[in-house]
């Protein structure tokens, strides 16, 4: 059986001349995510609305639409000819499906008419359809409430058809993924970075996650964990290329040549440098990280300053205003939390200094880096990066 969904989008409407670009991207993102379950789906736009017609399972469609950035809300909808009797029939069917034998529900009809040539106006429709319901359902079971009804039956009269629905599901809103260009995401196995990536996608970015692997100091299970995280994130932008950088030799060199208390800072500086080199090749425009001010030693404002100055690309930190608990709740909502808390810990803790510098200065860090002989290692790491395509 085919189901029709009416899809609403908000912010795209504001985007002026880019409007059709944004709409087309949202259309193709929706198509991509449902195509897996129904090859013959159809998605099309009418002014201000997108319609999806598919035989895929209703719950699966619902779940997919709820993971599509740019989509404000949607409703499973019945499409009928502009014949008042047909409209009455559907409206009554919807009302009946909500009736419970032992209790009374309240309802209203909300009618809109964008097709001004239709012979009934909104007021007429609301009255006639409401009356039809009251006449056909026992008064012990239903009554009208215009202000706070249990059931709100919406009837939209458009050019060729009427669209009728009673349920509105919220989406995540924002902008369609990919409409604002590519950004690199520094993805670790932790809780924060996947959430930061989600925030970027919600604002239209197409993320390219980059993970730094340090076998044997980090278990291959951590790598599997990061791949699983990328798979969850891929649900929001449909496909993701995960970049895995072999960081072991660089880590050893840092450990060997740099002062103990600066290890983490210098490590982060080099990770940013490598990220930028990879992202620029992909024409990326920014780097997203999961940093939040003051959460750990490498996230003091002083530490952020000395890492921030490494890349020329802007570093975006969407979690900067969130507390840990808020980040955890978001991670649970987007489905990455359970993966992030798997116990394969990052053995890079091997390289965590005993007393890290929390107020580093740029001169101090440059001095600390002066013995590093690392350009070849960095080139090698960038050239040998492993790319995993996730669909």
């Amino acid at each position, binding site marked *: 059986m085919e189901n029709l969904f009416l899809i609403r989008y908000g912010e795209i409407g504001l985007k002026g001349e880019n409007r059709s670009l944004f709409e087309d991207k949202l259309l193709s993102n929706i198509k991509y995510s449902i195509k897996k379950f129904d090859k013959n789906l159809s998605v099309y736009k009418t002014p201000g609305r997108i319609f999806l017609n598919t035989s895929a399972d209703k719950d699966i469609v619902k779940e997919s639409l709820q993971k599509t950035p740019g989509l404000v809300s949607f409703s499973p909808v019945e499409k009928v000819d502009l014949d008042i009797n047909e409209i009455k029939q559907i409206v009554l069917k919807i009302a009946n499906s909500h009736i419970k034998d032992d209790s009374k529900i309240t309802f209203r009809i909300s009618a809109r008419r964008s097709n001004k040539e239709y012979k009934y106006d909104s007021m007429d429709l609301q009255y006639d359809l409401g009356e039809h319901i009251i006449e056909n359902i026992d008064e012990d079971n239903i009554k009208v409430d215009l202000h706070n009804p249990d059931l709100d039956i919406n009837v939209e009269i458009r050019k060729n058809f009427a669209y009728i629905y009673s349920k509105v599901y919220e989406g995540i809103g924002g902008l369609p993924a990919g409409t604002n260009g590519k950004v690199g995401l520094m993805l670790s196995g932790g809780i924060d970075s996947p959430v930061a990536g989600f925030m970027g996608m919600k604002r239209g970015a197409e993320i390219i996650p980059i993970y730094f692997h340090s*076998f*044997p*100091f980090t*278990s*291959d299970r951590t790598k599997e964990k990061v791949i699983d995280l990328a798979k969850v994130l891929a649900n929001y932008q449909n496909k993701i290329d995960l970049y895995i950088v072999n960081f072991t030799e660089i880590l*050893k060199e840092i*450990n*060997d040549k740099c002062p103990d208390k600066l290890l983490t800072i210098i490590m982060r500086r080099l990770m940013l440098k490598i990220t930028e080199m990879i992202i620029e090749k992909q024409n990326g425009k920014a780097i997203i990280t999961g940093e939040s001010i003051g959460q750990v030693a490498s996230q003091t404002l002083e530490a952020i300053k000395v890492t921030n100055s490494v890349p020329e690309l802007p570093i975006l930190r969407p979690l900067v205003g969130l507390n840990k608990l808020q980040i955890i709740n978001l991670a649970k909502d987007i489905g990455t939390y359970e993966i992030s808390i798997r*116990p394969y*810990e990052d*053995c890079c*803790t*091997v390289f*965590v200094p005993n007393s890290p510098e929390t107020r580093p200065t740029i001169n101090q860090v440059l001095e600390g880096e002066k013995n590093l002989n690392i350009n070849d290692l960095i080139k090698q790491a960038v050239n040998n990066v492993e790319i995993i395509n996730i669909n």
Partner: protein
Amino acid sequence: MDYIYLDNAATTKLHPKVIKKMNNMLSNNFGNPSSLHRLGINSEKEIKNARENIAQIIKVDPIDIIFTGSGTIANNIAIKGAINRLKKFGNKIITTQIEHKSVLEIFKYYETQGIDVIYLPVNKDGLIDIGYLKKELDDDTILVSIMAVNNETGVIQPLEKIGNLLNSYENLYFHVDGIQALGKIEVNIKKANIDLFSMSAHKIHGPKGIGSLYINKDIVIDKILHGSNQEKGFYPGTENTPGIVGFGEAIKHIPTNDELHKMKNLKLSFAKKIQNNITDVKINTPTNNLSAPHILNVSFSKVKGEVLVHSLENDNIFISTGSACSSKKDTTSHVIKAIGIPDKYKEGTLRFSLNKDITKRQLDYVFEKLQNNIKSLRKIMG
């Protein structure tokens, strides 16, 4: 790829004859042993043979052997079945601090149910103190469960001494987790007065998903699973015929005494080499006759066990750690904790476990790689 597998206490590679035997069962002899027709009877016969093979090795009556889904399930059937049966006679059960999780967790569960549980401490070799056990034993005690060979250090408990001690108590059963012992050391079930003895196939080059339990016909335990009458009703459900037959075949190929002797000598000289050539090590396995021939547990200071495992994996050597790599929480294994270990060794524990095909040349190669890796890792982490 050529590799050296020294994680035989975790699981073992299937013996080729086991594969052949199982393949035949899977392809041709697929009948349900409960079926009345010839195919059923054929399967039933194969199970009978497997049961006899196991009985012959551990020197008991085949009628006292049941097959289960794993060693863990055998432990559950034995321990829960015994406690449920005997709880009207007493409220105290005894085990050791170094049991496998599949025993310890059952005892912890009964602890929450109001039963008095004693966890016997062990000395630095991992041995329980017989005097301590004697002191704890009383008429209220209904079950003693002590493993034959510890899975982490290989230490062997004095089962016959323990069994003799228990003999004078009525309404007390003696369970032994024999999973690491099977095929590696001689356990005299009769002489040690063992009532319940758990075994597993995949530790002796048999398949996974099949275990076995010896239940002394002179005792009665409750059933913890309910269904038809397969395996005397203790493990109901259609028999895993290929698994059972694989177990029965595997046990025919356990190492001979000569092979065990050779394994032990290889292990001891490997341990000696480590002790003589690598600084700051602690051998956790007793190197006298108190340990099984296949397990060697060693702790190194200034390295993390998991990083060493991954480094050796790069050299195609597969071993196991005694603890997970973690800076946040203390993950030293309960066994290593129980034998007592100085803090500096806590994170660097490795377990090497051999099989009869491991050669001196292989161990020499492993030693060389081990020494190199420790040297370079200590430089980084030290």
